């Protein structure tokens, strides 16, 4: 991970501090696959779920989104500056486009 050896202790420690092991990533991938399967099941059982369907689906989507972002993309373990750069974009996008859709009465039934 680092070519400048003065400021880091050992490579082994690096791995533990700075993210997951390969096995950890595989576990997350399996978890994501399971969530995806649950989502698909949701889409087939929409009537049974009733009012819980849409929020449930969106929550599952968000869980996957953030798991890839925080773990696979390492955002959880890296400098907060990277998070800031990305989240500004994400917040602006969600905010502006949600307001945009709202003005066009998208969220009204």
């Amino acid at each position, binding site marked *: 991970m680092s*070519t400048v050896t003065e400021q880091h202790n050992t490579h082994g420690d690096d791995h533990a501090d700075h993210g997951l092991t390969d096995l950890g990533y595989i576990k997350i991938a399996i978890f994501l696959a399971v969530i*995806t399967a649950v989502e*698909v099941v949701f889409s087939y059982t929409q009537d049974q779920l009733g009012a819980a369907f*849409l929020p449930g689906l969106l929550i599952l989507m968000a869980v996957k*989104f953030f798991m890839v972002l925080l773990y696979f993309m390492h955002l959880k373990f890296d400098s907060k500056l990277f998070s800031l*750069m990305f989240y500004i974009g994400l917040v602006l996008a969600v905010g502006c486009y949600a307001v945009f859709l709202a003005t066009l009465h*998208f969220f009204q039934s």
Partner: protein
Amino acid sequence: MADTAFHADEHVDHGGHYSATGLSNNKLAMWMFLGSECLLFGGLISTYMLYRGRHSENLGPDQVWDIPFTSASSFVLLMSSLTMVLAVSSAVRDDDRNTKVWLSVTALLGALFVAGQVYEFTTFYREGLGFTTSLFSSSFYTLTGFHGVHVSVGIIMLMSLVGMISKNKVVGDKKETVELFGLYWHFVDVVWILIFTLVYLIPA
């Protein structure tokens, strides 16, 4: 490589370059680019959400989707994210051989995904859903088309990286380069996570 006397060690990033924050320029740039891509895909997704109901009776989302098929290709793309992480992990360990293996597998899975998209689109087209058929179709193809182009560019980038590692022609920090290509790839996967749910799984 010593720059000048007062460049404190904390301010040297992993590539050995001085920076005021100790962070890599390239990595910062990539995250900013990904932040801006949120606005790009956000615009395409919201346009799709606005227009998803504007179609003729028998050519709407519920009629046209093949959820099992799309679920399979979503799974493929998701797994490519895993293989990408394994590639980065190999690069961190200076394991060129496995880095190339995992990068190639990632590209292959990506290509499988794109092939699935192509198959899906040609099927829709044969069923009567062309680009200009309806607002639903235009916005659907535009959104997924943009995503598909991003994936394709990613595949080319990954294979190029494999070639460059083989010929030892990677400019700059090899580990970081693999990591940054990985960030781009994961982002493309993350966009698909949104698209799969919002476009395919939410009924009209």
